[in-house]
C-alpha cells in the first residue's frame, strides 16, 4: 500500500488521500440518495406542499415584497430542516457512523457531508425559487444581481450551518424536534440577512445598497465553516 505513494512527498500524498476520501464520502451519500431518495423526497414534498398552502391562503391577492421575501426563506428554512439532517442521521440510524470513523479521518467526513448538503441545499433553493416565482403573485425581482448572490450565499450558509448541527443532533434521541430548535438561533442571523437582501432585490435597490448584507453573509459562512472544522472531531468521535 505504501509503495503507491513512494514517488510523492508525504504531505502531497496525505492531501491527495484526504481529497479522495472526502469525495468518496460525497459520492457515497449521493449514490445512496439516488437509490433511496430519502432526503430528496422529503425536500420536494415539503416545498410543493408549503407553496401550495401559501398559494391557497393568499388566494388571488398579492402581499408586500417584505412579506413575500420572508415567506420565501421560511419555506427554504423549514424544507432544509426536513432534509439536510439526513446525511448524518442516516449514518447513526443504520449504525454506519462507526464504519466511517474506522475508515476515514473526521475532516474528510465533514468535507464530504458538507459538499453533499451544499449540492442538496442548492437544489432545494433553486426548486423553491422557481416554484415560488412561477406561482406566487407579486413576487418580483427587480435587481437580479442582488437576488442571485443572496440565493447563492444563503444556500451555502444554510448548508454549512445545517451540516454541523446535523452532526450534533445525530446522536440525540429526539433528533426530529431538536434539529429545528437548535438550528433556529444559529440560523437567525443568516435568515434575517437573506430576507433583508431579498427585499432589497424586490424593491429594485442598487447593488451597492446590499453590500453590507453580503459582507455579513460571507462572514457568517467563514465563521460557521471554521468553527465546524475545529469542533467536528470532538462531536464525531465519542
Amino acid at each position, binding site marked *: 500500500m505504501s509503495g503507491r505513494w513512494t514517488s510523492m512527498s508525504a504531505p502531497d500524498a496525505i492531501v491527495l488521500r484526504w481529497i479522495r476520501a472526502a469525495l468518496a464520502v460525497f459520492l457515497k451519500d449521493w449514490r445512496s440518495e439516488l437509490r433511496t431518495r430519502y432526503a430528496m423526497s422529503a425536500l420536494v414534498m415539503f416545498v410543493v406542499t408549503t407553496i401550495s398552502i401559501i398559494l391557497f391562503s393568499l388566494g388571488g391577492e398579492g402581499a408586500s415584497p417584505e412579506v413575500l421575501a420572508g415567506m420565501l426563506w421560511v419555506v427554504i428554512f423549514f424544507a432544509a430542516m426536513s432534509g439536510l439532517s439526513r446525511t448524518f442521521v442516516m449514518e447513526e440510524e443504520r449504525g454506519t457512523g462507526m464504519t466511517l470513523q474506522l*475508515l476515514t479521518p473526521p475532516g474528510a467526513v465533514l468535507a464530504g457531508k458538507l459538499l453533499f448538503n451544499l449540492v442538496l441545499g442548492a437544489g432545494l433553493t433553486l426548486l423553491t425559487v422557481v416554484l415560488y416565482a412561477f406561482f406566487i403573485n407579486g413576487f418580483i425581482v427587480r435587481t437580479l444581481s442582488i437576488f442571485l448572490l443572496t440565493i447563492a450565499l444563503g444556500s451555502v450558509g444554510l448548508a454549512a450551518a445545517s451540516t454541523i448541527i446535523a452532526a450534533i443532533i445525530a446522536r440525540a434521541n429526539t433528533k426530529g424536534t431538536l434539529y429545528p430548535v437548535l438550528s433556529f438561533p444559529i440560523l437567525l442571523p443568516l435568515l434575517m440577512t437573506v430576507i433583508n437582501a431579498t427585499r432589497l432585490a424586490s424593491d429594485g435597490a442598487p447593488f451597492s445598497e446590499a453590500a453590507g448584507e453580503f459582507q455579513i453573509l460571507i462572514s457568517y459562512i467563514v465563521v460557521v465553516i471554521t468553527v465546524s472544522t475545529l469542533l467536528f472531531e470532538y462531536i464525531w468521535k465519542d
Partner: protein
Amino acid sequence: MALRLVLHSLRKAFNRRTVFENVATSVSEGETLLIAGRNGSGKSTLVKILCGVLSPGQGSVEIDGAGPLNAFTRKALFGLVSPYLQLYDEFSAMENLQLAAALRGLRGDVRTHQELLVRVALDPKRGDPVHGFSSGMKQRLKYALALAHQPRILILDEPMSNLDADGTAIVRSIMSEQRTHGILVVATNDLSDIDVYERKVDLNVRA
C-alpha cells in the same frame, strides 16, 4: 522494528459506571491477544478504544514500530470485524469494498477485491445489494473489508458469530495467517482455543 501494541492502564466509564480499569498489556507482531469477559464486561468497548474510534477515560494505546503515523496510516494499521460494524446495505459487496478503499483515500483494486470475495465465498453474489444478504454472508463480507488493505493488526470481536461450518473454517485460516505476519486480537466469550493466545486480558477480573 517489530510492531507492538501497548495498552497503558486503560480505564473507561460511561456516565458514572466504570466499565473497566487498569487494563494494561502489550502484544507484538506474531503474537495474539485474547480479550475475554462475560456480556457487558467491556470487550467491545476495549476493541473500539484499540481501533481509535473511542477515547479511553484514562490511559493510552501506544503503537511502537509503525514509523510516523498520520490520520490515514494509523487507520490503515487496523482491520476490524465486529457485530456492530455495519455495511452500506444499498450497495453491493464489490461496491462496499471499493467504497472502503476510497474512504481510506486509495484507489480500489478490483482484482484484489475479487480475490477477497472468492476467499470468503461471496464471489457469486458480488453484484447483489447487501440488504439481501444473510447475517452470515454479511459477516463474511466484513472479513473481506477488514482484510482488503492488509492490516498489520487484525481485531476480531466475536469472530465466529453467524457463521456456518464453511465460514468458520475460512475464519480459522484467516486467523492463523494473521498470526504469522501481524498482530491478532480476538474478543470473545468462546474460550475453547484459549491455549493458542500468547497474551490475555480477562475483563471479568476487573468488571
